[in-house]
């Protein structure tokens, strides 16, 4: 968790579920009025959240294959870094990131996108 996230006021954190609700190397969707947010779980139980739209053509990243700290979009195989939201070179593009934290196996998500 970065410092910007740490400064957020406590009420911005929204409980979205348990760590085990997301399969390892998988993702789930949190549906919000402002669009879907994809919440990913890596093999090492790290959790990341990105806007569920590929910067390429808007494909749902939550449906991609997760590997290491990245997800491959199911539409045209763009690879997006989970920690930065950036497409892997030579592709260029970025998708919004959201702060997320895990406490005692419960996942909390902030609905305000981080500035990139």
């Amino acid at each position, binding site marked *: 968790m970065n410092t910007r996230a740490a400064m957020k006021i406590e009420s911005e954190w*929204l409980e979205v579920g348990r760590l085990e609700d997301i399969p390892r190397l998988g993702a789930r969707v949190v549906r919000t009025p402002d669009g879907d947010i994809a919440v990913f779980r890596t093999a090492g139980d790290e959790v990341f959240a990105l806007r569920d739209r590929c910067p390429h053509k808007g494909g749902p990243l939550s449906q991609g*294959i997760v590997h290491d700290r990245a997800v*491959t979009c199911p539409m045209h195989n763009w690879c997006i870094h989970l920690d930065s939201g950036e497409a892997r070179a030579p592709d260029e593009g970025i998708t919004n990131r959201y702060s997320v934290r895990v406490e005692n196996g419960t996942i909390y998500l902030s609905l305000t996108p981080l500035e990139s």
Partner: protein
Amino acid sequence: MTQKLVLIGNGMAGMRTVEELLKQDPGVYDITVFGDEPHGNYNRILLSPLLAGEKSLDDIMLNRQEWYAENGITLHAGKRVEAIDRMRRIVVAGDGTEVPYDRLILATGSRPFVIPIPGKDLPGVISFRDIRDVESMLESSRTGRHTVVIGGGLLGLEAANGLMKQGMDVTVVHLLDSLMERQLDKPAAALLKASLEARGLHFLMEARTDSILGDDRVTGVRFEDGHEIPADLVVMAVGIRPNTELAAGAGLHCERGIVVDDTMQTYDPRVYAVGECIQHRGTTYGLVAPLFEQARVCADHLARHGIARYEGSVTSTKLKVTGIDLFSAGDFSGGEGTEEIVMQDPAGGVYKKLVVRDNRIEGAVLYGDTIEGAWYFQLMREGTDISDFRDRILFGQHHLGDSGHGGQTQAVLMADDAQVCDCNGVCKGDIVNAITSKGLFTLDDVKAHTKASASCGSCTGLVEQILASTLGGDYESPEQKPLCKCTDLTHDQVRAAVRDHRLTSVHSAMHFMDWKTPDGCAACRPALNYYLISTWPEQAADDYQSRFINERAHANIQKDGTYSVIPRIFGGETSPAQLRALAEVAEKYDVPTVKITGGQRIDMLGLRKEQLPGIWGDLAEAGFVSGHAYGKAMRTVKTCVGSEWCRFGVQDSTRMGIELEKLTWGSWTPHKFKLAVSGCPRNCAEATIKDFGVVAIDSGWELHVGGNGGVKVRATDLLCRVTTEEEVLEYCGAFLQVYREEARYLERTAPWVERIGLSYVKQRVVEDEVGRKALYRRFLDSQEIYQFDPWEQRARGVDEHEFTVMRQVGA
């Protein structure tokens, strides 16, 4: 403590090794690079276009000096290493700079061979090797007029062409009676010579140079017969010699080149050597593709992976003269036991020759039309038996029709704004720009940067051709492609390991095979999972997270993120009750589009993921199972009505289709697998463009394999004729099983059959009865486990997380 790595030679082979090493393991070494020339690293292949004025110096730089600093590499540009002290492990440069090493790479390249004749050292006599040579040639072209190029090989012709473009009057002098004799046979060389003459080059063939004339500067050339011609510039391009001086001076064993083993190590294990300076298994190389393979192997060992081996390269050549299309590979000289397949159209400027021994290609020479070069080269490297298609081989792989690039087959004739990749809208100019401005060498690089050929792949041959004509002869066409960037192993090696070592989970397989990434990628995980479950259907765990979304959600994802649902309708025969049930389901779920598919099934499009288990439950209740229209799996059996109704029908094709679909549904395959059954030879079910096609004949059934529609239409090959329906089922199951067990993941039956040959399929499925029955048995055993309805399971709540959102926020 970080180990010290020193590279001597800032050229393409050495720097490629460093780049590979940085990719594989960036932190292992503290790296120092010495280069004779005062630049960063540049693309030596592009010196010809630089000379011809088609490229600028900027265009051909690969790594600028800043790049070295950014990557923490110390570059000594313009410093020549004079000595290596192997006892103290120190290299010493001409200016006294001393740098210690733990590991040393020699990449000293080659130097031009200069014929020892009088006048060879006169000003105005130069070779064609580096940027300085090009600069002095350009300098001379501004003042002088007459150029003599000694040597009618690849390098000489490229230099001659470049100087002619700079306005010089150029004569090429060649010792033999035929140009480029190491790459071309006489007919092709004659076509090339005529074409170059038409552009304005002059040739003096079978001419032996006696001396170069002039006092302070070159003025002419004299030949052994006494004949003299004027010259303001003489370019010596008669060949190159490995540069072994430094290595030999340090006591390393050298013959023609610095002798290395399969791990690129010299006789001193701390000292590696790559590139034109080496001699490996008695051979020296002067093209880029082998150099890059060596670089990869060397980096693998420096990064302490220690598994790669260099086993020598088969090379191919292209001439970098704009507008001339020429390809040469392997041994085309022929000789005892070889045959030649030749096509010659001198007026049309086309010549193709394949040299064949025991139905395997040994060499190829193509002039004028080279699009099939890459294909022939692949057949040659893989030693493919061509007997099944040798009657058509010269017409090329595309002779059956390609959709998607307007029948265009010759990259050189295309305008820069002509579209090459019609899937991604990439023009020839975009590709050429990317290759030159970003320093690309491989098809994969071009795919990644431009997306050309990254979708359907039908323009791959064209893109390879553009790559070859932009880079010249030396683009990289790997011998055996690794499965993906996560491993050096090929599909076949991975599959063999899965079988031989009883690997049964994706994770353990990656661990066993030393995968380079922690959990693979979207390319290798589905492939591995397929190899596991097809090899060990009973033992292997089907890894859910290694499946592509369609196979996880058991529906086809659409461009807007909705899904399509296609229930199985066996043999395409339906009933009012079924149709009524489908209509009710479609209305209940407010399905936006209902459509008949190409395979005679009913597709309901536009469903949200959360709706899927519900609709599946309703479909299951009405007796439907999944149509697997979303998977690398057996898809549908298309049928015509057959003898039950059709006045021409000779067998009950619909019944046969239903039986085949009941046998095969639910099986996973390397790629999608489609079947069809026609009731008579009129073939209304179009069975001859299916993976397995059945055509009824009066005496039974004809079985066809390896067809597909799509990007590259391929009609099936006839496998055999059988009499009974039981035989159709058995042969079909056996064919499916060989394909399942031996094809590479994502390889359809059409390219697979072309690769392994129809004769092989016939041997396994038709001739070997015991083998066929065993294959069929294994297929049935696998079906015991995998023939189930995934929809009904999910309607009952399996994988619920896949179909529900984690949390809904707000309205």
